[in-house]
Structure formats: structure tokens, C-alpha cells
């Protein structure tokens, strides 16, 4: 355990605990997430040493209650780690390991050590003997996960299940960024389970919130690197950032990044309230956040590539690590249209006189 982690544990101020965690993660990733590690990951290798380093600092467990192996950091602060993950375009399942841990802890299921996954979709049944049968898809880093968390139909109602890795048949796939995104099948596999403390829609929303947070972080990085490039790159005898046309685009990009950060903050607060089984639930804040961050990712990515020009379209340049993941994350756990419909239905149901109160309640 590092000193900074000890500080984070004992600090009475929640926000400082979050800042400490983010700094710890930021330093680690700046040092250890090297181009070599990225290349190994892209080639299909599991960067186990980097994961071990994250794990050693306790970052994947930071979100857990103390009883489940965490160290009492407020959930919103722990979630803010995901903005750092986004800022570094992290090619590791930190988000899903945190989310799986949170879900398993709430259900009272023992949390397996190591990386975990949460299925974006599944059709799984659990029989009376506790054996799971079915399939799950959209499983980020599923091939590397110790367990895949799904919501299943149990004999007495919905159950949360941790499908153990050794019993999984994996159909490997890749998301648009080239990160593993697999489908898995199980056939009468004994699996730890418990009555589901929440529904599939809530688990999907919590997953969407993690992607919103990572998109916010990635957009922040993309905005900063695009401004940096515009200040360095010279054409017509001056930095391209001196041209008003480019400046106006960069202002739009920064606005989208700021908007995404604010929306992601709303999502983090909603998930924190949900994790404590309090507050107004995940809607409408998470729906709004996933829509807004996804839209910002689309607009921001387009501007960043436009300003970077041809060099940003190369494999060698780092830009695509961020823009590729922005595109993957805006797809994961529900695209903008899906969440917009959820939010829109909520607002229309509130009616003309309830519309504004529904907005102030978000």
C-alpha cells in the first residue's frame, strides 16, 4: 500500500479522497501505461503486470464497502477514477471490475479476485440446483475476466450470477477500438448467485454511467492534446491555432468536453446514491449523462481529427487510442438513442406541468 492510499483512507474530506485516488492512478498510468504495454494489449496479450500494479494500489476495490474489501472511499469519489482511466485511454477492465464488485457486494456474493466483467446483455437461466445455462454478449475483456456478472432468471425470480471463468465458452470479439469484447456461453455451470437486488435496467444504467465517466476523461485529454497540436503545428507561417476557423472549432470541442464532464458528474452522483440504495435512482441522471457524453464524444472526436489532419489518422499517432475508445464507449451499455428514448419517455410522462419538476429533480 502506498502512502497516498493511506492518506486517501484516513482523509475525512470526501473530495480530497477522490483527488488523492485520481492522482495515484494518474501517476501510475503515466509511468506504466507505455506504448509497449499498449502494443502487447493490442496484439491480444493480457497486460497482467499493469493490472497487478493497479490492483496493488487497491484501485479496482476502491469502490467497495469496507466489509467487501474496500477502504471506505465514497462511491462517487471512487467512480471519479474512471475519468482518469478515460484520460489515459486505459486498455484494461477497471470500469467493469469496479461495477461488478459493486453489484456483487450489494447482492452479498463473494467477489472473486482479479479482473471482472459485466455483460451488456444476456439470456441466462439458473436452475434450482444453482446451475447457469445461456449466453451473454458485449462482455468487455470477457476472456480475461475471473467472472462475468449477469442478471439471470432464477427459479424464484431474478438473480445476480457470477459466471466463473473456467466454465465459460468464449467467442472472442473486438469493439471498435480493438479492445476485447466477447460473447460467452455456459451450459449447466454451477455459479455463485443471489436474489437480484436490482433489475437488469439498473445494471445497464450503472454500466452506462461508467462509460459516461470514461468518455468525459477521454474528451478532456482529447481537447487538451488537440489544443496542444494546434499551437505547435505551423502552416502559412503561423501556428494553425492562430486561425479563427480553427479556434472556433477548438472552442466547440472544449465546450463538448466540459459538458460531458458535468454530465458524467451527475451520473456518478446517481450511481453513488444507487449504491447506497438511496436517492431518486439512476434515472433520469444516468440517461441524460449517457446521451450527453455520447453526443459530445461524436462531436469532439470529429473536431479532434479535423484539427489533427492526416497525422491524426495514422496508427502511430496517439489520437486514435482516445477517439477509438470514445466511439466504443458511446456504444457500450446503450447508445444515445436508447437512453434518449428512456429519458424522453420519462419527461413526456411527467406531462407539460411536470416537465420542469422532472428536470429539477435530475
Amino acid at each position: 500500500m502506498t502512502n497516498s492510499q493511506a492518506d486517501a483512507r484516513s482523509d475525512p474530506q470526501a473530495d480530497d479522497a477522490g483527488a488523492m485516488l485520481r492522482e495515484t492512478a494518474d501517476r501510475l498510468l503515466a509511468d506504466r501505461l507505455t506504448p509497449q504495454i499498449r502494443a502487447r494489449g493490442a496484439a491480444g496479450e493480457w497486460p497482467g503486470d499493469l493490472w497487478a500494479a493497479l490492483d496493488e494500489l487497491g484501485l479496482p476495490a476502491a469502490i467497495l464497502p469496507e466489509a467487501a474489501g474496500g477502504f471506505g472511499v465514497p462511491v462517487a469519489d471512487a467512480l471519479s477514477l474512471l475519468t482518469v482511466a478515460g484520460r489515459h485511454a486505459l486498455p484494461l477492465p477497471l470500469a467493469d471490475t469496479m461495477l461488478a464488485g459493486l453489484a456483487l457486494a450489494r447482492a452479498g456474493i463473494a467477489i472473486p479476485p482479479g479482473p471482472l466483467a459485466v455483460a451488456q446483455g444476456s439470456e441466462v437461466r439458473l436452475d434450482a440446483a444453482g446451475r447457469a445455462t445461456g449466453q451473454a454478449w458485449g462482455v468487455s475483456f470477457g476472456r480475461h475476466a475471473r467472472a462475468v456478472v449477469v442478471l439471470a432468471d432464477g427459479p424464484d425470480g431474478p438473480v445476480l450470477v457470477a459466471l466463473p471463468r473456467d466454465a465459460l465458452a468464449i467467442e472472442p470479439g473486438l469493439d471498435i477500438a480493438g479492445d476485447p469484447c466477447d460473447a460467452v456461453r455456459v451450459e449447466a455451470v454451477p455459479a455463485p448467485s443471489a436474489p437480484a437486488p436490482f433489475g437488469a435496467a439498473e445494471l445497464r444504467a450503472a454500466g452506462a454511467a461508467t462509460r459516461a465517466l470514461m468518455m468525459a476523461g477521454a474528451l478532456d485529454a482529447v481537447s487538451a492534446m488537440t489544443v496542444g497540436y494546434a499551437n505547435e503545428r505551423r502552416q502559412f507561417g503561423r501556428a494553425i491555432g492562430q486561425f479563427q476557423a480553427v479556434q472556433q472549432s477548438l472552442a466547440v470541442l472544449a465546450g463538448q468536453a466540459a459538458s460531458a464532464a458535468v454530465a458524467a458528474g451527475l451520473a456518478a452522483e446517481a450511481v453513488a446514491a444507487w449504491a447506497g440504495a438511496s436517492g431518486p435512482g439512476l434515472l433520469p441522471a444516468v440517461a441524460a449523462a449517457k446521451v450527453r457524453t455520447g453526443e459530445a464524444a461524436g462531436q469532439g472526436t470529429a473536431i479532434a481529427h479535423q484539427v489533427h489532419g492526416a497525422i491524426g489518422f495514422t496508427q502511430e499517432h496517439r489520437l486514435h487510442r482516445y477517439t477509438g475508445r470514445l466511439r466504443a464507449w458511446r456504444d457500450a451499455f446503450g447508445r444515445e438513442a436508447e437512453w434518449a428514448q428512456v429519458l424522453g419517455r420519462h419527461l413526456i410522462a411527467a406531462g407539460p406541468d411536470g416537465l420542469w419538476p422532472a428536470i429539477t429533480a435530475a
Partner: protein
Amino acid sequence: MSQFTMSQFAFPPPPPSPAADAFRAEIRDFLAAEVEHRPALDRAQSWNGLDPAFSRKLGARGWLGLTWPKRYGGQERSGLERYVLLEELLAAGAPVGAHWIAERQSGPSLLRYGTEAQKAAILPRIAAGECFFCIGMSEPDSGSDLASVRTRAEREGDGWRVNGTKLWTTNATHCHLMILFCRTGPLDREHRHAGTSQFLVDLTLPGITIRPVRNLVGEHHFNEVVFEDVRLPGDALLGREGEGWAQVTGELAYERSGPERFLSSFRLLVELVRVLRPAADARAEIALGRLGAEIITLRRMSRSVAGLLQAGADPALEAAMVKDLGALVEQAIPEIARDLVADGPPTPQARAFAEVLAYTTLHAPSFSLRGGTREILRGIIARGLGLR
């Protein structure tokens, strides 16, 4: 450091304000009685809607200058409580236009730069809803380039003599006072912002001529205000001579970050929900959800700036961002609304929707012009990013 600090801009979560939450219920009760019966089109006018009697009603409740010191007619309540009041008024479509500039901008300027005599004489009248202000900044040849103003105040005896023309002066015919921005020193090409000052101008003074300029709908909000050898007393100077630019730019965070920067079209959204509700399809739900996501996010950004202002920060860049993003949403709402509703029999609801849609569509171009054009705002943001 806040939880989700951006590299270049900071929108920390607004501090919790239980007092504001309690206040909200009180405001909603008041609005239910005072505003809900008004026609949809009136409510769609948002902060263009003029009703001096309504402004006086707010004043009588102590709801103008809510944050100001009690000795000047204020209530010494928090900025976040005032924020709740403003957003509730706007969301309900209350006619706040008569006092809006005085309460938002002129009063705070007086508090910051005014002499004790100026504050004591004017602020209680603003707080009572009995003294309305207009802004004398733009001129026929000075829009976004405010430093190029040519209206000039020359020293004369103990006072000043003013000559020049102001344009786009909203509600000048309904206002008692103008805060005039003009040149008091020679134009220095190297320091174009130097040599400007602000004055409190009684609009009934001899030599002032106010002429209406009708907008494209035919409404009279704008005016041309001509100054011909207008004699101002020495105590008309607001703040310090030559500091006009710094004083004006100091107001910008207040002017650009409030809920009026993303709620101008809100009443159209309400009427849209009213007509969609019986049978909203997936396309309508998705469109509403996208707009809702924008508004929920902008509201949070705007409240964040209110929290920063309350804490004494100067979030001018964040405010520029709120206004730029807010105008986009305000302008998107009529475009999306017209797409979602087909024509049909002229029921009262359909008629109200059509009127509000037309009103909002026609006024939408002004949303990214007033208070700093889109291009100026993005230029400010770009400079904040370190681009020159």
C-alpha cells in the same frame, strides 16, 4: 480541487443548499397563483415579457435583489436561492422583463462600483420593482467591437456633457435609468479599452431622444437613444473614470451564465409535451430525451457557475461556455418541435403550440446575438484555452 475538474475549465458541483430547496416550493405556489392562468403565448416571451405590476409584486415579496444587503432593500439570501427563484420564474414563463436588467446587472454593478449615495438612492427602488434599467453599450457602428464606441462624455464644470447614439437599447421607453458606456478619454490605438467610463443616466434628461426600432416580428423592444449635449451631474459617474471596460467585463459572468441562457425556449418545450403526450412515438421520445439531456446538463453547468460566483470566483470563461451551449439548445428546440408535430384540427392546444412555435422560431436568431455573439464567446473560450 473539484471532483471532475477539467484541464482548462472548472465546473465544480454546486454546493448543497437546503434553504434553496425549501424556497422552491414557496416560489412554485406563488407562480401557480400568478402565472399559470396566463396565455401560452405570453408565457413564451420569457424574459422579454414586460409587466411592471408583476415586477412590483415580486418586489413586495422581497424577491428582487434577494442577495443584496438589507440596508439597500435586499434580503441577504444566498446566490443559489436567487438562482432557484430565477429558474422557476423563467420555467413558468413569468413576465420578468421589466426588472430583469436592473436586478441582474445594474444593481450588482451599483453594489460593486457605486458611491454610498448612489446605492442608497437607487438600490431600494430596484428591489421594490419601481426602478428599471437599460444598458447603453451598442452603437450603430459598435456591436461586438465595444471598444470602438464613439459616444463621448466631456467634462463640463462639475459635470459632463454627452453626445452620441446608442442602439439596440432594450426597453428604453419603459426604463428610468440607463448605465451608459462611453468614451471619456481619447482613443489610444495601442490600448483600445482605455479611456472609457460608465454613467448613470436619468432617461428624462433634456437632450435625450428615444426612438423605437421594431424587430422583425414588428414588436417594439429595441430603441435608438440619441444624446445631444446632454448635461450629466458629476455624481452620474459610476465607478472610476477610465475604468469602464474593466467594470463592464466584470459583469459578464453574471450576464452570461444564468438560467435565461438556456431557458429562452422552454415554454415551447412545455407546449410540445402537451401536444405530444397523448400518443408520443419513439421518434418524439428520442428527440425529447436528447433535448432533456442538454437542458439537465446545462442547468448543472449554470448552477455550478452560480456556486462559483457565490464563492467569489470570476468564472467568465465558464459563463461564456454556458451561454454558447445554451443558445444552441434554445435554437434547436423550435427546429425539433416543428419536426415532431404535423398539422391537424385547430384544437386550443394545437393553436397554442402553433403560436408559441412561431414566436420562438422567429426570435431564435437573437439568442446567439444578444449578450455576446456566438463567435465572440468562442473567441473568449479559445483564448482561455491558450490560443492566440
